[in-house]
Structures are given as structure tokens and as C-alpha cells.
């Protein structure tokens, strides 16, 4: 659990950090080469996924059983075709869109919900804290993947549904982290002063607790996104992903594994490598952001 604020002394009672701090943080982030590599990877993968189809146009709606399992380069298919004739490169782009959109949206949703509930629980304490944290403890005691699988089996998976399902269970981590921050921040003098002047609890949470925990929140959000992308991949790998003609990298990897023994390597490597790269990218970015928000590291 972070003890960032205790290590550096009381934070300034300010709504927005001075511009210099952001610039300093950016400098530290840029000094982290892996973070820049991660950012570059993300931009590259997102660019290929979202802008690629404008350049490399393929039919990802209609199957073509006359063109299944074509090898890379055959009949103009740069990365070959899959088991129902979809162009594999076009499918990677389509799958990337789903994986990135669902991952980002679920990660952001989990972060927002977790941050709000964690801040409220930590700041108000008492029965509010007890109630929220018991819910968190109870839900954390169940392996989240099983819950996802159960829900995905009950409802028809779609991108919005996956975002909701993953977001509904992934907020537990951020809630715990932010609650810890809030427990520390609520006893700070500036918060006490604001309350003494008649400020409400809601204002304290909105204007002081959350803004001062923003570093932890943002860093955690990057890992949430990486986690969410992996969850989408897991669910699709288990056959509980979004049905065709939609695609995502996890589902493509699962399909590719069925072809493991057939020598159709182009169905296995590209989605697997894409998943590795996007998850690594977010992890590197998260590490860089952690350095940027960690004041002690700025002195190195």
C-alpha cells in the first residue's frame, strides 16, 4: 500500500498541482526509456488497429469458405486467412479495436468506481467504510475469473457487456488503494481546516482526497487497463468472448491454438504477440507514471 504522502510530509492544500510539477513529472517519465517504449508500442498498436483498416481494407463481415487457411501472401492476404476465410491482418486490426476499447473502457470504469468508493469509504470511515470494505473483501475472496466466466455464460457477450462485467469486478483493487490514501489524507491539516470552515464531506472528497490521490489512481489505471485486456483475452480464450464476426486477440489466439498442430502459424503468433505487446506497453507506461508521480524519484 502506498505511503507516499507520509514520506514527503503534508501535501499542499491545493486543488491543482503547480504546473511545474507536471512538467517535472513529464521529464521524469521521459527519462524512463521503457516507459517511452511502452508509449510507442501503444501508439503503434492503437494506430494499426484503428487507422490500419483505412489503408488495408478487408471484408470482416462475410466468410469465404473458398479461401480458408491461405498462407501469408497468397491471393493478396498479407497475413493469410483463417478457418472461415477472414483476412488475418484485417482481423488483427478488428480484434485490436475490440481489445483496446474494452480494455480501456473497463479499466477506466473500474478506476472511476473504485476511486469514488475507496475515497468515500476512507474519508467517512465508520459504518460506511465497514460496509464498502466488507463488500470488497467478500468479492475479492472469489476468484474474479470464475465470476466473469459465470456472468459471460449467463448473458450474451458483447463489447458493452464485457466492459460492464469486467468493470463491475475490477474496481475492488482501486477501491482498496484509494481508501488507504484517503485514510491518510483525511487527517491532514488542510482537510481539517476546510471542514472547520464548514466544508462538507462531499467537497472534501471531491476537492482534496481524490485530487491528492490522483497519482496512485492514474498509475493503477494503467495496470487496470492491462488487466482488463487480459480478462477479455481469457474469456475469449475460454469461448466466452464476443461471437463472430466480431473479433478480439484472445479469441483469435484461442482459435489459433486449435490449429497448433496444423502448421498454420499465422493464426497463432500474431494475436499472441499482440497481447504480449499491449500488456507490456501498459505495464511500462504504468511504471513510468509511477516514477513521474513519485516525488522521491524525481531527485535521482
Amino acid at each position, binding site marked *: 500500500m502506498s505511503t507516499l504522502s507520509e514520506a514527503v510530509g503534508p501535501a499542499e492544500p491545493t486543488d491543482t498541482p503547480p504546473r511545474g510539477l507536471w512538467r517535472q513529472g513529464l521529464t521524469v517519465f521521459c527519462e524512463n526509456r521503457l516507459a517511452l517504449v511502452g508509449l510507442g508500442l501503444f501508439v503503434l498498436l492503437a494506430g494499426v488497429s484503428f487507422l490500419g483498416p483505412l489503408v488495408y481494407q478487408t471484408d470482416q463481415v462475410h466468410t469465404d469458405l473458398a479461401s480458408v487457411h491461405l498462407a501469408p501472401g497468397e491471393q493478396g492476404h498479407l497475413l493469410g486467412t483463417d*478457418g472461415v476465410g477472414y483476412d488475418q491482418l484485417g482481423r488483427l486490426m478488428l480484434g485490436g479495436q475490440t481489445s483496446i476499447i474494452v480494455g480501456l473502457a473497463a479499466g477506466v470504469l473500474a478506476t472511476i468506481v473504485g476511486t469514488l468508493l475507496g475515497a468515500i469509504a476512507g474519508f467517512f470511515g465508520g459504518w460506511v467504510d465497514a460496509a464498502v470494505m466488507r463488500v470488497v473483501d467478500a468479492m475479492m475472496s472469489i476468484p474474479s475469473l470464475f465470476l466473469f466466466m459465470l456472468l459471460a455464460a449467463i448473458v450474451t457477450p458483447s463489447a458493452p457487456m464485457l466492459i460492464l462485467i469486467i468493470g463491475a469486478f475490477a474496481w475492488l483493487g482501486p477501491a482498496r488503494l484509494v481508501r488507504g490514501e484517503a485514510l491518510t489524507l483525511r487527517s491532514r491539516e488542510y482537510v481539517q481546516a476546510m471542514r472547520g470552515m464548514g466544508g462538507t464531506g462531499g467537497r472534501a472528497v471531491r476537492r482534496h482526497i481524490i485530487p491528492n490521490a490522483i497519482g496512485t489512481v492514474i498509475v493503477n489505471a494503467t495496470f487496470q487497463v492491462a488487466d482488463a485486456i487480459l480478462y477479455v483475452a481469457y474469456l475469449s480464450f475460454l*469461448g466466452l468472448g464476443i461471437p463472430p464476426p466480431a473479433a478480439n486477440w484472445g479469441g483469435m489466439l484461442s482459435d489459433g491454438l486449435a490449429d497448433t498442430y496444423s502448421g498454420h502459424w499465422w493464426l497463432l503468433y500474431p494475436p499472441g504477440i499482440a497481447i504480449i505487446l499491449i500488456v507490456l506497453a501498459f505495464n511500462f507506461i504504468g511504471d513510468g507514471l509511477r516514477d513521474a508521480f513519485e516525488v522521491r524519484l524525481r531527485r535521482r
Partner: protein
Amino acid sequence: MTSRFPGRALRGAVAAAATIALGAGLVGCGDNSGSSKDGGSQGKDTVTVAFRTPNWILPISAPGFTQGENAIFGQALYRSLYQYRLDGTAQYNIDPERSMAEPPQVSDDGRTLTITLKDNSWSDGTPITTRDIQFWYDLVTANKDKWASYRAGGFPDNVDEWSIKDEKTFSITTTEVYNTAWFVDNQLNRITPLPQHAWDKDSATADVSDLASSPEGAKKVFDFLIAASKDPKTYDSNELWQVTSGAWKLEKYVPNGEVTLAAEPNYSGTDKPKLSKVVLRPFTSDDAEFNVLRAGDIDYGYVPAANMSQTSYLESKGYTVSPWYGWSITYLQLNYNNPKSGVLFEQPYLRQSLQMLIDQPTISKVIWSDTAAPTCGPVPAKPGTNTDTAGCVYSFDPAKAKELLESHGWKVTPDGQTTCQSPGTGPNQCGEGIAAGTPLEFTVTSQTGFAATTKMFAEIKSQMAKLGIQLTIKEVPDSVAVTPTCEPTEASCSWDMSFFGSQGSWYYPAFASGERLFATDAPVNLGSYSNPEADKLIEATQFAGDESALTAYNDFLAKDLPVLWMPNPVYQVSAYRSGLQGVEPQDPMNLMYFQDWSWK
């Protein structure tokens, strides 16, 4: 700062990396070889078979225990009165060599069948007589509500008189004059002689008596036997199961584990076992089974559909790969009772249009890797014979399907949403109960875990989208469980289409009549299809004296489309060591006769 997230995410990335690395290794080793290519096992007298652990031993079926492995296991220990084969050479499809009785003699009025037992004995040397048949009859008639094969109006309700003539002869008089082929194939197939001299008691310590001859006593005996059968851990030690009539005896049984069958030295049938032992080995998944098969550690297994490309590799390792065709049909069930889509399915032209958008030959060839064949109607084609839709009423024809929709008042919007433009009941209108603007959109409830099924529905969805028919595919572990027979007012009736045919939707007994599938209110008529003409034709198959009734029934339903006919996959693609003889032909009715197997 510490967080569980980066570690977990990184572990996930590592797992993904490991997955493709493993895949890389496997892709790379796809062509290696080097082990024995003879496929034989010289000197062996044992065979190891990939086989799910059976969990029922009593040769009277019970609800929840009707899985195929139980039937095979049961037949190895307790032979049915009649065995069947579908090669067209035998009267009533009765296998004369394996059956324990001669084919029935039918009286002039067609109501009485007289059956004479052959000379056979139990494993303890006691002769098998009509007393053992009577014992079985007493048990099932007194406990028919607990018997999985019972259907109201069927056996034994349709038996007017049951008469034992002597130790070797008994007769059955039916309530009506049934088609003998139907009665022999679909009713007499349930009779299994049971060892009255060993089982007619209500506890392990009681003496054997004639307890089952009274209905009350029969209930007690039945309960005792059922309880013993529900205790798998005692299968290889319980004295009850030591007295058998089959070619095999149970040597070792591990619940949820391996089962060993040993040749029964006192077996009285003519098809004596040639091997001394058969080891039935279960696997937790298709992948686990295939990995062991690939490593050459089992003598008989199966190739999952996703690994069909490995056929040549397995053959190079000394295996023979052979599809196991079933006496089955495969279809997409339509829910006529769905309050929204039911009115659409009621329109024959719409069913015809949907059927014409299913390219059965290409799906069978490309997606099922030639391990499926088109279904054209309710009566299966001879196993392994049909490869195209030449005999089908409706073959793949998107242009005709479009024309059919447009001629019935639908505005076809390719890759959009087709809607009803001309509501009404006229010949050029959408049909009764279909409002203007009604879209053609359906949800298919399909099965998880079958890659070929997923691809097949991707293809069908694509074809339908070209005519603006929107399909949503929902995969669930058990599609039958969530698409029950229902009334329009029930919440469970919201399903549109259901598919449960990844290994065939329905396996018939020897006589492929449709009284359980397509008759009004039939037990497996999940979609509540009802057509008085079909009912008449189905009933006729049970009473007509020749094959013409079956042909008429097939022709009518092939045209009327109570369901959408789909590619019919094989039961499994078997792979067995080339040195293993007697595996072929594989029984289309899903039994295995290990006594025919031997090593070269």
C-alpha cells in the same frame, strides 16, 4: 509503492508468451516422427481405450445415467436379448449371431410375436431361460416410472398379453397391430435377460426367492438393485455384478478412473473375446486425450475435430484413422412457441428461405474437414454415403431464397435489416401475425467447446446477413437445458433457435421413426412443431407393414422443414493402432464390441 496489478498483468503476459511458445514448439514438431510405425503390439493381449468412466451397471436404464459409455459398458457385461446391425442383410435388422434369441415369429393377425431363446448360460453356468426374461419384465412393469426408456403408451403399455410358454419360449401380444419392424427395433431392443437366480432379493443378505413376481416385491428388488448400481465403488466387489451374460467380466473399477474388463471364460455366446483384457482410460479433456494419443500411449482413441489435420501424422505413427458414422441426424431446432419469432417460423416460405442459406456440402467439407455430411430429412442416410445435397429438397441457393422473401412482401436489405413491407395473409404478403416492419432477426443458442460449430455458425450468420437476416449466436455449455419445450406465456420460451448437434443431434434406434422427435407433444420435440399431416405419417410408420410409410414420413418432413437440416457430424473420428483388428465396422448405433478386437 506495491501493487498486485503489475505482477498479475505481467504474469498474464508471460502466460500468453508461454502459450504461443508452446504453440511454436508444437507447430515446429508437427512433422517429426521416429517411433514405431508398425502400429502393432506383438505379443500383446490387452488393449487400452480412451473411454469416459461409466457410472451405471444395472442393465435397466435410469434417468440421468443414459450416457453412451454406460450403454457400451452394460453391453459388455449384460447382453440385450437382441442386437442389431444396419447393413440391410438381416430380418428386422436383428444381428443373428450376437442376439440371444431367434428372430420373432409373428402371428397371422400380426399382434403376437413368439420368441425362442438360444442356448446360453450365465457366467456361473446357470442356463439363461425365460424365467430371466420374466424377471426383467416384472421389474420394468412395476417400476416403469423409474425406467429411463419408458414412454407413456410405449412398452410395456402397448403389451396386451405377456406369456411364458416354456423355458425357451415366450410370446408378446400387442394392443394393436404394429409394424413388426418398428416393434422389434424400437420396443424389443429394451429387453435384457437378468439373472433371476442371483438378483431376486431385496438386500445383500436375503435369500433369493420369487420376490419380484409380485408388483410390491418387484419394487423392493428394483430399489435394491438401483441402490447397488448407484454405488460405483463396489462395482468390482459386489457379488451381484459377478454373475454376467456378456463376453467380459469386471476386473477392476476405479470411480471416475480406469476400468479393466477381463475376458469371461464361461461366456456362452459365439463371439468369444480374442483379447484377455480391455483397459478403459478416461481423460479430462479432448486436448489431454489427443496429447496421449499423439504420444502413442493408447491403442484406441479419437481425433478432436480441431486436430483433423494431424491425421497423416497419426497414420505415420502407426494408427488407422477412421470416422465413426452414426445412425443420426443433425438439425437446428426452431421454437414455434416463441411469442415473437414463432409466427415467423410458422411460415413455410420463410423456413425454406432459411434452409436455402445453409451451404451444407461446403460446410461439411471445409469446416468439418469432411467428417460431416448433409442432412436432408428425418430419416438418416445410410451412414457414410451422402456427401452432397443431391437428395435434399432445398439445396443452397441464396438467389432463390431472396426471391422467395421478396415475393412474400419482405423488403430485403443486404447487409442491413430485412423487414416485412406487406403485412397480411395474401399470397404475396408476409403472413398471419406478422406486422409491418417486423425484422428478420433471431438468436441461435449453440454449444461451447466445439471450434467447428463456432465456425459453422459464423458462415451461416454471414450468409444470412447477405439477405439482411440478422443472427445472434449465443454459445452455452448445455444448449438443450436452456431451450426447453415451453408455452408462449413462459419466460423460458424466449429462445428462437437451438443447436445441440456438434456430435449429431439425435441418434436413432434401428428403426428411424419420429414419434419421439416430430410428433405433436413428443418428448424431444423441443420447438413444439405440430402438423396433423406429419402426426398421421409418423403414426403410420408404427403400424404400416412396409417401408413405404417411413419413406412417406421422410419425404413429407424433408419438405415441410419442422427444423432446419444441418450438416451431420460423425460421432467421432477414431484412431486405433493399425495392428488392432476387428474395430471396423464401427456400430452406427454407438455400441462397441471389444470381443471382436484382436492384435495381428
